[in-house]
């Protein structure tokens, strides 16, 4: 997006300039998304009869699903902001420099394998990746971590094994395809990424001498949570809208074609925005589809979905979120197809 027109006389570090940037960056995206949500809701209301809007079963189901996605994601979002706040306030920047290989091309696969350690769903990984970048980790490695953490952590792999009893190759395929996608996206960012797409909000960057670390931790945590929480609500509303308006019978029309079914389940994962710890159960229930199509659902879902796009737009900027999510979706489908052909 275009730069906010800050008066040229103000130096960029002037408080007014920073406030102007911070105040304008968020509301523009919020306004657009808010208008879209309002229009969608009004559209449903118009279809159902405006007077019956507030009591119609569809609107109540929409409310329930919005609240459900929020309540379900809150603990994980808090965990993620807690970790990212702690990284910001307590971990010195040079620690990450030592842990990751100096060569960014090597740091990418190491970071994507390190995704194993963050037990949570995708809501937790976005703020953590944001704080890693602020602490000097090369963005490519942070993005590889962002993509792999929700897909390959132990909780997710165990739930996949439970959902597909007697099919360990499904767990292996999910691990391989997710790791490959994360590493590929990291390398793609190294090769083609532009720093100007990243517009991280002007924010605290680590510990400033003289401030109480705990107080910095609290204010940073509060700010991160409120910011990400707002975008989470936005994503939850979008997912609920699709959940309520798109009939599931559409599923069956795509189940027969092997290629269309892969693309279709990938698209379904994006709009349904199911938590990565639950998506294996949903994938297992889609019995009409080929194993590769169901793998696509589980590989794309933790990496790209509506609430994630909203969260990323809030954390890294919209210009980044759209490009990154679109590229990730394409790479994830390609990796899924290859892995499925190899393992399934």
């Amino acid at each position, binding site marked *: 997006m275009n730069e906010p027109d800050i008066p040229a006389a103000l130096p960029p*570090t002037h*408080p007014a300039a*920073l406030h102007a940037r*911070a*105040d304008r960056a*968020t*509301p523009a995206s*919020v306004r657009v998304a808010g208008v879209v949500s309002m229009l969608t809701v009004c559209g449903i209301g118009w279809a159902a009869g405006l007077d019956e809007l507030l009591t119609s*079963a569809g609107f109540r*189901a929409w*409310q*329930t*699903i*919005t*609240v*459900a*996605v*929020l*309540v*379900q994601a*809150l*603990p994980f979002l*808090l965990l993620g902001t807690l970790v990212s706040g702690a990284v910001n306030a307590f971990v010195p920047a040079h620690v990450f420099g030592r842990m990751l290989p100096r060569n960014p091309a090597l740091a990418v696969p190491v970071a994507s394998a390190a995704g194993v350690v963050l037990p949570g769903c995708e809501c937790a990984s976005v703020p953590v990746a944001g704080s890693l970048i602020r602490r000097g980790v090369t963005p490519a490695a942070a993005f590889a971590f962002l993509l792999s953490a929700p897909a390959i952590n132990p909780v997710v792999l165990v739930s996949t094994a439970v*959902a597909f009893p007697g099919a360990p190759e499904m767990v292996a395929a999910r691990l391989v395809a997710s790791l490959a996608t994360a590493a590929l996206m990291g390398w793609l960012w190294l090769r083609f990424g532009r720093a100007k797409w990243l517009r991280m909000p*002007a924010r605290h960057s680590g510990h*400033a001498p*003289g*401030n*109480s670390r705990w*107080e910095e931790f*609290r*204010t940073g*945590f*509060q*700010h991160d*949570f*409120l*910011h990400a*929480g*707002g*975008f989470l*609500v*936005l994503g939850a509303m979008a997912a*609920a809208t699709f*959940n309520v308006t798109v*009939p*599931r*019978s559409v599923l069956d029309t795509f189940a027969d074609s092997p290629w269309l079914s892969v693309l279709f389940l990938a698209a379904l994962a994006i709009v*349904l*925005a*199911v*938590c990565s*710890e*639950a*998506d294996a*159960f*949903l994938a297992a*229930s889609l*019995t009409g589809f080929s194993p590769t199509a169901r793998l696509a659902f589980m590989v794309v879902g933790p990496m790209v979905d509506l609430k994630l796009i909203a969260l990323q737009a*809030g954390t890294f900027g919209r210009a980044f979120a759209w490009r990154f999510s679109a590229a990730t979706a394409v790479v994830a489908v390609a990796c899924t197809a290859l892995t499925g052909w190899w393992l399934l």
Partner: protein
Amino acid sequence: MRPGLQNVLLLLLGAGVLRISLFSDICLRYVKEGLQPYVVVAGLMLTALGALGVARDGIPFPTRRQPVASPDVHPHPAGHDGSGHGDASGAEPGHGNGHRHAPEHDVDLAPDPASEHGHDHSRGPRVAWLLLPPALALLLFAPPALGSYTAARDSPQLVVDYDSFTPLPASGPVPLSMTEYVARLQQEESGSLKGRTVVLQGFVTPGKGGTWKLTRLVVSCCAADSQSLSVAAHGRQAPPADTWVRVTGTWRPEGTLGTTSAAIALDIATLERIPEPANPYLDRAPGR
């Protein structure tokens, strides 16, 4: 969003989350049972964060203690807690006016002016206002559990593959979960349900032309991933949609029992209305 309002928002959200998870089981309308402890922890954290913020920033309404920053009411103009931090209201009266903190907290929240203004923490993100409607909804009018509207929208029928079935009790009506009833009809080769009276419970989903189904929704994580179980009900007029009922009846013999041709249906003998269970997505055999 001003700091005081951020704290109020956090307190409201925390209270709403605790109301549905700690003080009632309403959260089971939204998430599966296993997540409840985590939701409680999230509610406690939000409440603590908001309370801490209120303690630090003060409440967001104009108070009588406005002239806090003026040096003459300040008990110790500089470094009064001995921590060595710069005291904004003492050293920088111009900046001190911007704070609404009680004097005893001044030192903690008054970093040097550069870092104070270099961060936008004091003005929280506006997108956070989107958290307000769900927070109020949780606190005041928690949305109901998903019901017949969702079940009727052909969400996928849940099929659980059973390796083996425990033998049914020798006599009397058999209480079964809907999952087990559906699985026994289509997978149990011995067909032991033939002629047996079973007890099921679920809610009513009306169909076309006066037909109705006994349904349940089952979630694996939250309500967004619900799948339905439905049994065509015969022999009784449809109660109102979303009514929870306990029914006894026998399998309606259509198709071959133990194969996928077996109709998932029930001839109802008795029907009794029951209150909505606390955990509406947990498919269990009805108690006696």
